[in-house]
């Protein structure tokens, strides 16, 4: 028996970074907002207490902060003809749960996508031609431009307290920053992070080779900062427990440190935790949402009526929520039609290790989640792809986010995997190895997509999400090209041995790559090829907005969160300034 609750103006499904932003913006307008979070409450004090929070086994190995896979897993297959099986433990990507979502365990790497990224299809066709891109890649424009989003990037970075050095101020290239970035209207709110030793060695080599190294933009604080919500953060102390962990120092921009306290003090907002939303409910014509149905911790079901439904449950879960709710036509890879599940993409990563002699102490444990020195020369459309036969690219970054030894104990190629020699090599190289990360784009294809699994169910009896994904040939070529460049830099860095590990098919769910899943509920200008319009509003149900990297038509070679924050504020602004005045489609279908 489902209990029907008192209607509210807005229900926000998932209280992570984006849910908190939308809820705060709309509650400030005086709307009654309910936030439904499937997980529990958790705060810097007492939950993120040190030293317990620095428990590598609990958090890195057993995935203590991640979506409870015993209740909600997903399935994967590499091709349409294969049978998908459950991912029984998270490994390749790590969706978070509980209050704050993945925004608690992120690293704080804060990149803007570029002007080219938002008009990717147009740009690629104009510069290289349709034949060059080929028909297998289903790249699309976003329906929104960088210039439109710039003020919202700025707003999000000031919420986060991002530290960095501008490379392009209003069109003028700045020394010390990234010369390839798109224009920004003003400097970062905070200065860049300190560089690691590996970063200094990388910077020297990259400079000598004519590249353009810069310090990674970071939302780990580089000095004490009071953000635009009036919340105070502390300077990061480079403890080396950032990704997969919560920060006990109030030094990482997370929902808990930058917005949730303000949201929860708003009398128009109500947070309900342990509220598992099962579906968005639609009216008879399926043109409008009437609210959501959720189960509480004991399994009792409630219907929460609302005029506006904001879905912010992480990219993968957003796609699943739309499928479970029947909003938008599910994508069919056989005919290339339908919108929900379309253009699922990922991130093409790779690793390079530079092994030094014992006089070079790298000190890998002195690290922040977003410390790093990188070049953007081979990323995005920052170089001529004409001779290379692929689109997209990677940044190449010297970065060690940690020296946690279960995860980090590099050995040179040829070392046995165990035994006396292995032990000696681990001891010999632990403190004398630099690391480079390749962080590359992921292009959508017709057969990489998301739908509901026909067999496996979650703890509430609902179908799991099924992912069909293989590395596209384009991306395999791209990452090998960037790997070759990275290994060249590694050799220049003066190591005794340089080992590169480019990503190759088959895609495996068993090795960590990154939690940058994108697409599935993409934005665009054409309702037949996108699920959302340029304001993240559903084409099919105008009072449903879906905020997540699920909106990205393809994934560029930059970390996704900054662009997502900009889109969240952009969407919130459209709701406040346009939708509330005249509820209905903001773009004619």
């Amino acid at each position, binding site marked *: 028996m489902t209990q029907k609750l008192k209607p509210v103006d807005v229900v926000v499904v998932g209280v992570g970074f984006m849910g908190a932003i939308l809820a705060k913006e709309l509650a400030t307008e005086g709307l009654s907002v309910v936030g439904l979070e499937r997980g529990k409450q958790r705060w810097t004090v007492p939950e993120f207490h040190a030293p317990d929070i*620095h428990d590598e086994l609990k958090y890195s190995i057993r995935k203590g902060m991640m979506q409870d896979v015993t209740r909600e897993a997903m399935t994967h297959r590499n091709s349409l003809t294969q049978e998908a099986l459950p991912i029984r433990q998270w490994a390749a990507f790590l969706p978070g749960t509980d209050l704050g979502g993945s925004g608690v365990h992120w690293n704080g790497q804060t990149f803007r996508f570029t002007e080219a990224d938002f008009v990717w299809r147009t740009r690629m066709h104009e510069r290289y031609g349709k034949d060059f891109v080929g028909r297998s890649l289903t790249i699309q424009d976003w329906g929104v431009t960088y210039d439109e989003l710039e003020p919202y990037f700025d707003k999000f970075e000031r919420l986060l307290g991002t530290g960095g050095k501008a490379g392009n101020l209003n069109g003028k290239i700045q020394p010390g920053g990234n010369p390839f970035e798109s224009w920004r209207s003003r400097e970062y709110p905070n200065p860049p992070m300190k560089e690691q030793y590996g970063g200094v060695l990388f910077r020297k080599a990259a400079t000598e080779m004519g590249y353009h190294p810069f310090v990674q933009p970071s939302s780990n604080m580089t000095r004490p900062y009071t953000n635009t919500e009036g919340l105070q953060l502390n300077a990061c102390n*480079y*403890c080396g427990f950032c990704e997969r962990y919560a920060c006990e120092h109030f030094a990482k921009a997370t929902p808990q440190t930058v917005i949730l306290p303000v949201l929860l003090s708003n009398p128009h907002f109500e947070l309900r935790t342990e509220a598992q939303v099962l579906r968005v409910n639609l009216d008879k014509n399926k043109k409008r949402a009437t609210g959501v149905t959720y189960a509480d911790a004991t399994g009792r079901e409630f219907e929460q009526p609302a005029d506006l439904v904001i879905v912010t449950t992480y990219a993968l879960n957003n796609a699943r929520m739309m499928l479970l709710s029947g909003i938008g036509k599910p994508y069919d890879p056989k005919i290339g039609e339908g919108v929900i599940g379309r253009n699922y993409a990922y991130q093409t990563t790779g690793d390079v290790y530079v092994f030094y002699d014992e006089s070079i102490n790298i000190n890998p444990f*002195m690290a922040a989640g977003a410390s790093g020195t990188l070049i953007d020369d081979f990323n995005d459309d920052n170089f001529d792809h004409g001779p290379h036969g692929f689109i997209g690219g990677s940044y190449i970054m010297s970065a060690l986010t940690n020296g946690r030894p279960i995860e980090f104990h590099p050995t040179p190629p040829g070392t046995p995997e165990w035994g006396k020699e292995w*032990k000696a090599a681990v001891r010999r190289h632990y403190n004398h190895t630099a690391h480079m990360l390749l962080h590359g784009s992921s292009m959508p294809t017709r057969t990489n997509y998301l739908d509901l699994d026909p067999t496996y169910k979650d703890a509430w009896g609902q179908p799991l999400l099924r992912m069909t994904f293989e590395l596209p040939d384009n991306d395999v070529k791209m990452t090998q090209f960037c790997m070759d460049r990275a290994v060249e830099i590694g050799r220049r860095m003066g190591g005794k041995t340089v080992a590169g590990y480019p990503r190759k098919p088959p895609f495996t769910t068993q090795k960590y790559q990154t939690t940058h899943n994108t697409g599935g509920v993409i934005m665009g200008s054409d309702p037949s090829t996108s699920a959302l319009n340029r304001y993240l509003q559903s084409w099919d149900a105008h009072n449903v907005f879906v905020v997540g990297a699920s909106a990205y038509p393809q994934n560029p070679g930059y970390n996704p969160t900054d662009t997502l924050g900009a889109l969240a504020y952009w969407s919130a602004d459209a709701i406040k300034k346009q939708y509330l005045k005249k509820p209905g489609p903001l773009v004619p279908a």
Partner: protein
Amino acid sequence: MKKDKEEQGSRRDFLRSAFAVGLTAATAVIPTDRLQAVPTKKQSTDKAAPFVFFRPDEVEFVSAAVDRFIPPDEEWPGAVDAGVVEYIDQQMAGKWGSAGYMYWHGPFKEGTPSQGYQLPFTPAELFRRAIAAINQYFSAQATAFPQLTADKQDEYLRMLLANGTTLNGVPSKVFADFLLQHTIEGFFADPIYGGNKDMVAWRMVGFPGPYADYYELIDQYGIKLDREPVSIGQGAHHGAS
């Protein structure tokens, strides 16, 4: 990372062959209805720990095997002295061993290496089944794994890792990979979990432990940090440095 690189081809082959092999009668699948302690020469009474999960014959095998994975040397203890067997025992006895961290709904079907673990055995069941098969195998030859020479032990472990046999329905590589993974975890995890006694693994590589504030040190490039590590369990007595 080396492992990741090499896994791609070899694991695929092994899984395919493993499951094929597991269904034929000709292989050395040894059913065990009961477990029998295997007498060994090893004297371990001086450091015998109370085991919650492992039975004595299992302790004998696991101890010998993990000490080949991480053997003692002149300077640093091996896995056994670091407490790895106690670590694995506790993991198997707890939530991890009972698949409490895994999606555990069927149907359980054979998958590809890219799809990960799909056997219908919890980690604890997997260990029990596989070790029973190994101990039976040696018992039938009137010997035991710990009684082999170090070279012969290594040879046998290499065979398991190469998926040379099936252990009571468990492809030997799945078990051996599991055992190696747990050995490394136990060696390097915080001592609160029973391994890494006296933080020997951290001392060996120079990891200072979970207490950390490197704001003043990170840009003193190449500095040699020479200090005692601090573990989570010591927390009440140390401020963050």
